[in-house]
């Protein structure tokens, strides 16, 4: 029978350190675990402590140690202090309230809370405050409360933190600790003061009543703080020449909570805050930690403006500090206050902008966010220069956010349209691949609405394409522009800069190049094809365009193929509609972030949200993405049109149920009447037939009727009988609208036609639907 003494912890550590591989270490651990297990089985009291200590070390390294849990309990129950120490430590590290074992501790802790040795009491308080369950806390709250009132400062400070835990676990017990808090702040011992402040903070944060109650402590807290600052050197609490900075910070934080939203309290602490702010040594980190906390407090309470300016100036000084920790902290705080104290922060703008060049990633990010917050109408040119420079040189992780920020700021404060377009160009060309997808439709909308800049914009975008076709957002916006304004490009109408000489063929070469390039994404190809198609009404090389479109009718890419087929149909059968369909986009109303939802003016014949029933979304692209882009809008309309054109053979059997007809529009000789039916078989769908008649002496040609309804409705527009409204009421153009509705029907209509050689366009609202049409 070999008796071997279990090795000490430090020997174990030394041994483990010699392991050269993970496998070797595991082997050593397993061997030792086995030894410990057998030692436990032998119920060896002498070495239990040592064994559990080793177990804790192995646990820390990540190895399972649950078989030691009960042993911890045995140690706690022992009378030896060294045993108890390891036992409680083990309990804190290995146990939590999910284990049944821990309940067994309750009695031990209760006894130890009343132990004759203060260190044992301290252990019990520490452990209870660390992992006590709600039941344990409920059981032992009374003991903790008693210790909170003791004169022993060693125990009092631990009892305070234990109370914090009890309150967290059993909030209803908070009241119980109230009497004990009465004279906590009159303590001289800093440990007690510190933990008392923590306890008070916890109570204030949990209960508005407590908060109101403790406001009366403000004068006392102010006094304590004052003593800390004014007292001379105190060796007990000194840290780099400052007296107990940790306590100062904690008090400042409590003052913040008490002063927030309360005029009287804020006033009572005004002086001391000013004093701390001006008198604290800033040469070392300690002083700065206190100043930081002071600034946060000043900004949160109802301080007078002089104090706030003082606080922001402190932050400004922090920004110039060599210590990057201080700079980081300053930027974080400034970001919090930039909304409320905008002008004060503006004064430090140049320092903040300098931080964009800092090497530290966290500092750069903060500086960028802050810079965007400081941009306004006055400084936009200068700030944008810095931010664009930052965009050029920053890490990829910043580029997307920076680009979005630039677009937003440019939209809000652009000093001129030309500057705006130039800024967008700069972002697209330098950080084009990082620009977010949703920027593309926003930019398109912006460009559309800057009517006088069309020629300039398309020229610049064209030139950019000649340089680089790899950045998809840039290519997409450029394609779209060329499709829209290609005629301006050819005719060399640019006023802002030297117009370039470019032929139709050259432009088509570029667009076709995009179609075949490996660099182009499927979305981009779609943009190019549509652009080419649009140019068929702006350029004269219609044959070339027809050829391109027909080639792609057999493209492998389903999306491209679909578009090409539809465009082919446009050329072949519905050529007379092509000009109207492909005409210039009108100015779009700005709507909420996701692109047009309620469309006021559409360049197609129906509202996009309707289309789904027989029209599957394009393969390889989320339907919503296509839906929400302007391109998607045109595409959908064309698709819808194609669908209905092929479906003309279907005629629907209408059941008339006697809803009276109405005149929806009557102006300049054009009259549009609506007649109603209910569809068969779906009675919830109202079928409206429009009848357009023309009482003037000239025909109205190229007549296009468009309608839009509120989001809650669904609308389908079938094709018209013809697009010429003959003069002198010699005939009518009819067209069928189907509306799915359950509410009061409203509609906006747009009419375009050519009358006596000039183009006419009109918008109207139709509100006078008879109630039977929607009930």
């Amino acid at each position, binding site marked *: 029978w070999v008796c071997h003494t279990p090795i000490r*912890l*430090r020997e174990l*550590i*030394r041994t483990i350190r010699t392991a050269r591989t993970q496998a070797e270490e595991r082997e050593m651990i397993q061997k030792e675990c086995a030894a410990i297990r057998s030692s436990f089985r032998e119920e060896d009291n002498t070495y239990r402590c040592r064994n559990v*200590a080793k177990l*804790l*070390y192995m*646990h*820390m*390294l*990540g190895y*399972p140690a649950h078989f030691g849990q009960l042993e911890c309990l045995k140690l706690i129950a022992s009378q030896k*202090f*060294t045993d108890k*120490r*390891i036992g409680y*430590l083990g309990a804190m590290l290995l146990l*939590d309230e999910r284990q049944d074992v821990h309940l067994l501790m309750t009695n031990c802790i209760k006894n130890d809370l009343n132990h004759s040795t203060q*260190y044992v009491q*301290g252990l019990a308080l*520490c452990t209870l*405050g*660390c992992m006590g369950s709600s039941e344990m806390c409920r059981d032992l709250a009374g003991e903790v409360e008693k210790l909170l009132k003791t004169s022993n400062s*060693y125990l009092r*400070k*631990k009892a305070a*933190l*234990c109370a*914090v*835990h009890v309150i967290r676990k059993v909030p209803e017990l908070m009241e119980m600790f109230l009497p004990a808090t009465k004279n906590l702040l009159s303590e001289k011992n*800093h*440990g007690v003061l*510190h933990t008392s402040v*923590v306890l008070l903070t916890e109570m204030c944060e949990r209960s508005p009543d407590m908060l109101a109650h403790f406001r009366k402590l403000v004068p006392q807290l102010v006094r304590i703080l004052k003593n800390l600052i004014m007292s001379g050197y105190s060796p*007990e*609490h000194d*840290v780099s020449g400052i007296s*107990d*900075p*940790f306590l100062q*910070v*904690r008090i400042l*934080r409590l003052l913040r909570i008490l002063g927030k939203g309360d005029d009287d309290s804020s006033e009572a602490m005004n002086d001391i805050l000013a004093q701390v702010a001006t008198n604290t040594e800033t040469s070392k*980190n*300690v002083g*700065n*930690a206190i100043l*930081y*906390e002071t600034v946060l407090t000043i900004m949160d309470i109802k301080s007078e403006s002089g104090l706030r300016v003082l606080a922001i100036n402190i932050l400004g000084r922090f920004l110039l500090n060599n210590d*990057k*920790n*201080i*700079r*980081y*902290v300053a930027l974080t705080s400034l970001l919090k206050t930039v909304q409320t104290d905008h002008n004060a922060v503006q004064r430090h703008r140049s320092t903040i902008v300098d931080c964009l060049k800092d*090497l*530290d*990633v*966290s*500092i750069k990010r903060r500086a960028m966010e802050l810079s965007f917050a400081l941009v306004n109408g006055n400084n936009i040119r200068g700030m944008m220069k810095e931010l664009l420079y930052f965009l050029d040189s920053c890490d990829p992780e910043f580029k997307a956010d920076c680009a979005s920020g630039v677009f937003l700021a440019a939209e809000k404060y652009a000093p001129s349209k030309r500057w705006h377009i130039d800024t967008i160009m700069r972002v697209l060309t330098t950080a084009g691949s990082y620009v977010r997808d949703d920027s593309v439709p926003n930019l398109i909308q912006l460009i559309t609405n800057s009517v006088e800049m069309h020629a300039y914009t398309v020229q610049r975008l064209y030139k950019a394409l000649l340089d680089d076709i790899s950045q998809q957002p840039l290519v997409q916006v450029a394609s779209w522009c060329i499709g829209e304004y290609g005629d301006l490009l050819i005719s060399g109408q640019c006023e802002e800069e030297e117009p370039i000489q470019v032929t139709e063929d050259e432009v088509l070469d570029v667009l076709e190049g995009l179609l075949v390039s490996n660099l182009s994404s499927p979305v981009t190809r779609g943009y190019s094809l549509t652009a080419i198609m649009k140019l068929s009404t702006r350029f004269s090389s219609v044959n070339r365009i027809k050829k391109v479109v027909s080639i792609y009718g057999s493209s492998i890419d389903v999306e491209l193929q679909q578009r090409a087929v539809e465009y082919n149909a446009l050329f072949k059968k519905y050529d007379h509609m092509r000009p109207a369909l492909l005409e210039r986009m009108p100015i779009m109303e700005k709507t909420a972030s996701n692109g047009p939802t309620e469309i006021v003016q559409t360049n197609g014949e129906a509202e996009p949200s309707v289309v789904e029933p027989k029209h599957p979304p394009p393969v390889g692209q989320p339907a919503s993405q296509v839906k929400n882009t302007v391109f998607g809008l045109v595409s959908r309309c064309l698709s819808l049109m194609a669908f209905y054109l092929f479906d003309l053979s279907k005629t629907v059997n209408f059941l008339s149920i006697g809803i009276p007809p109405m005149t929806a529009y009557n102006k300049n000789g054009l009259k549009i009447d609506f007649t109603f039916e209910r569809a068969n078989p779906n009675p919830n769908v109202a079928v409206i037939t429009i009848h357009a008649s023309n009482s003037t002496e000239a025909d109205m040609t190229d007549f296009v009727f468009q309608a839009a309804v509120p989001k809650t409705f669904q609308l389908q527009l079938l094709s018209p009988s013809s697009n010429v409204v003959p003069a002198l009421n010699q005939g009518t153009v009819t067209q069928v609208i189907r509306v799915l509705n359950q509410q009061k029907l409203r509609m906006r209509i747009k009419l375009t036609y050519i009358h006596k050689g000039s183009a006419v366009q009109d918008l109207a609202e139709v509100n006078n639907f008879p109630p039977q049409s929607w009930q």
Partner: protein
Amino acid sequence: MIKFVLMVNQQGQTRLSRYYESVELSRRAALEADAVRCCLSRKKDQCSFVEFKDFKLVYRQYAALIIVVGVSDGENELSIYELIHNFVEVLDKHFSRVIMFNLDSIHIILDEMIQNGHIVETNKNRILAPLTAINKMAEG
């Protein structure tokens, strides 16, 4: 509040770990590895505060040992930075030579300084008093 305290060496091996918020054992290794990797990869001229997951890390290097403290948002980073130094000074005062072999003592010291995620005591003498007393009792 303080979420955890770690002491690691330059190879990323944990020498001491203490959690004030319950983290499952299986997740600890990964958490420690990530946090340490984050701190070790930073250069000399970068600041000692790192945004990590949904909280912050404050770290400080002393020769071969790196101390990493995880704190919740709203904690004064400069103050914690100072606390780490205080802790090291206490360790320095007590241990004449290599400290890492006396793991249990370090835990005792840490417990005297930080309880439940909050600072309890920062005065070096008061922190070391119980340990001195315990050692006396152990000898006796």
